[in-house]
């Protein structure tokens, strides 16, 4: 234990203060999501009182149709993230391992998708979905989610593939392995962790997505869970503040759990930017 200089004391106090400030909203969320609606006075409670968390969750869950919308989001996040990572890995394999010409062009063509803001795609996609009868269907929303997730997933997997020694490919080619065999039996197993990192990252992204949820869908049978939460906040007087907070708490649990379970993967995804 080194001696405590004044500088060190100040630093420790600042760190503790920042930590507490950051925890405060989460603390208030949990405390007030547990207050029973009858005893909620309209202003924030600072200390736990009555415990009605389960009732509030139930009320919020029913009002926001979470049974349908959470199932939808689970489906979108799971299936679309998996499809996007597979498609992105195929492209990353072609860009790194195969003798493709004009690699930079293809890379930028795909990567451009993640640079552009979502708003610039919205209206043409809305019109296209309306004319093809895909508006307010899981397919319309699903296709858009897959496409949005491909660029960054490609980026993460590509960055990993470039770190593999070229001998891996060369020796297998000499043995006469075709591209598809090479892909499935060598590069996919080797880049499993990068693919998993991209999957977890995109899963969380889709689960948390709101913008296309409200532009491309309307009915609870199709809407993702964040659109339902936004709708609940829009008329929260109907169910009361504690129920709305309980709903926000519940929809956050899956991604928070994923985040703590797979912290390493998030860091991998973020690190590929450096």
């Amino acid at each position, binding site marked *: 234990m080194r001696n405590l200089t004044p500088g060190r004391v100040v630093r420790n106090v600042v760190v503790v203060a920042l930590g507490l400030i950051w925890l405060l909203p989460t603390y208030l969320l949990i405390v007030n999501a547990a207050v029973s609606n009858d005893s909620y006075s309209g202003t924030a409670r600072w200390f736990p009182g009555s415990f009605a968390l389960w009732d509030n969750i139930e009320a919020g869950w029913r009002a926001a149709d979470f049974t349908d919308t959470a199932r939808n989001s689970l489906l979108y996040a799971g299936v679309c993230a998996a499809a996007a990572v597979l498609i992105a890995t195929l492209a990353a394999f072609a860009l790194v391992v195969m003798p493709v010409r004009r690699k930079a062009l293809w890379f930028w063509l795909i990567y451009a998708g993640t640079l552009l803001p979502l708003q610039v795609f919205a209206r043409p996609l809305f019109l296209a979905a309306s004319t093809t009868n895909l508006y307010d269907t899981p397919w319309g929303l699903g296709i858009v989610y897959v496409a949005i997730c491909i660029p960054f997933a490609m980026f993460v997997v590509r*960055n990993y593939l470039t770190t593999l020694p070229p001998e891996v490919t060369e020796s297998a080619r000499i043995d006469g392995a075709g591209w598809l065999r090479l892909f499935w039996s060598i590069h996919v197993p080797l880049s499993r962790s990068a693919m998993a990192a991209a999957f977890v990252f995109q899963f969380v992204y889709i689960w948390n997505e*709101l913008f296309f949820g409200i532009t491309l869908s309307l009915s609870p049978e199709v809407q993702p869970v964040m659109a339902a939460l936004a709708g609940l906040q829009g008329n929260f007087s109907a169910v009361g503040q504690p129920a709305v907070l309980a709903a926000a708490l519940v929809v*956050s649990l899956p*991604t928070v759990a994923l985040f703590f379970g797979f912290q390493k993967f998030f860091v991998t995804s973020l690190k590929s930017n450096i």
Partner: protein
Amino acid sequence: MTVRAAASRAAFLFPAVGCVAVVLLTPFAITFYRSFFGEGIAPEFTGLANYAQMFRDPILVRSLVNTLIWVVGSLVLPVGLGLAIAAMTNATRWGRWARLAVVLPYAISGSAVAVVGAFMLQTNGAVNQLLTAAGLDSLTAQWLLLWPQNTISAILLSTWQSTGVAVVLFLVGLQTVPVETIEAAALDGADGWKRFRHVTFPQLRAVTVVVVGITLANALRAFDVIWVLTQGGPARSSETLALSMYRETFLLQDAGQGSAIAVVLTIVVVGASWIYLRSNLRSSR
């Protein structure tokens, strides 16, 4: 043989290129084209009128100003705080617990963050309670009802959510600073702050560029926090370009104006991303 080889390459590339081209790039081109036309079903070519309107309509000017406030706010807050927190917690053993508290909200969606924010920032909410209890009545405010407090509130919420990313990235950067460099500086008598300022910080240049780029691009795209917090209101006073585009296009049915806003937003976002892409490509080539 060469035809087959070309076909197999295409088979690997095509799904990704096809999806991105059809679902993302084509709509982008259509939006760009549409931004030069007026409203309605058979719109007339109006040149740059929609763009000029963005600097004339007080609501859209406010939206531009708010977007600029977001840019400045997210440069100062998540980036500055992220660097400070990463550096301070990296030095202490128990610092990882404080870090966990800061990184946690990153996993929470913008919509849920805004629900908590609306609850804390309403006029009789927790923030004003806290200020009153601390004897700072003069600082209490109608956080969500007046401009510019509502924009600042949204930025603070977004800071709460996104500082974790900056912390994680800066930490990665800090851990790549060679221990010998720091020890050498310590032997030369450079203590705490001096050592950080002159030895550690210059080594974080590459990471800083990436953090600035990512934070800016995310801040400019922010939709869900503002939409759920205030819907851009009251009277459209907390809208940024991302929200103005949504309102003009889908609620006011002015597709030309909405498209022009989307294009301007794209230019700003791509410009902000460019600063970090440049350094990124240099290091990966």
